[in-house]
């Protein structure tokens, strides 16, 4: 597609439930990143995928968070047993392969997750 698509746009879930957030990157972008933006804060790196390489999971805050990327395209971020502190906007971004000139990322509009 023309841009990075994220779904759902908004999600309200009960504490303790699992949620899945989806990201559909720009076609041909091999790098995909997930970020978390808590209220009034900057963006916190969560995880990075590049092609078939092992993902960089160094930013995942706990083992309740996981992500996968199928076929080098769509990615799903899963949060198990959600807690209130997980409430945030989750942003996905894609870019060309690092090293081919850094043109910055293209971001999706994010998923606003509210845990009640």
């Amino acid at each position, binding site marked *: 597609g023309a841009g990075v698509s994220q779904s759902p746009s908004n999600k309200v879930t009960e504490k303790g439930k699992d949620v899945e957030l989806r990201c559909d990157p720009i076609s041909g972008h091999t*790098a995909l*990143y997930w*970020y978390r933006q808590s209220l009034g*804060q*900057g*963006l916190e*790196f969560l995880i*990075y995928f*590049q092609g078939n390489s092992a993902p*960089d999971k160094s930013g995942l805050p706990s083992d309740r968070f996981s992500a996968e990327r199928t076929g080098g395209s769509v990615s799903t971020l899963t949060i198990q047993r959600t807690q209130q502190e997980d409430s945030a*906007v989750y*942003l996905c*971004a894609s*870019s060309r392969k*690092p*090293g081919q000139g*850094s*043109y*910055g*990322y293209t*971001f999706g*509009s*994010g998923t*606003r997750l509210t845990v009640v």
Partner: protein
Amino acid sequence: AQTVTQSQPEMSVQEAETVTLSCTYDTSESDYYLFWYKQPPSRQMILVIRQEAYKQQNATENRFSVNFQKAAKSFSLKISDSQLGDAAMYFCAGSGGATNKLIFGTGTLLAVQP
């Protein structure tokens, strides 16, 4: 490791005036890039301007320009002829290394007064 610091949580400017947003960074990478992103209430992160660290010339994009001081590790954004549509949160960010992941500052909320 990289860090990006924005020391101005909020700024205000009169329409048609000029404003400068500050950013400092620290990195161990020799090859890196610096960015300014704009985030309006729609949440969409919009690339405003980028600077390659190996270039000495400051990047410009229409009314937006940067003052890149490599030795001082400073990367400020100047917005000239401010418009009401410039009101947004502005994030400074840096990338580099194998993963090229962006590290963000905490942002500056810019208000434009008519």
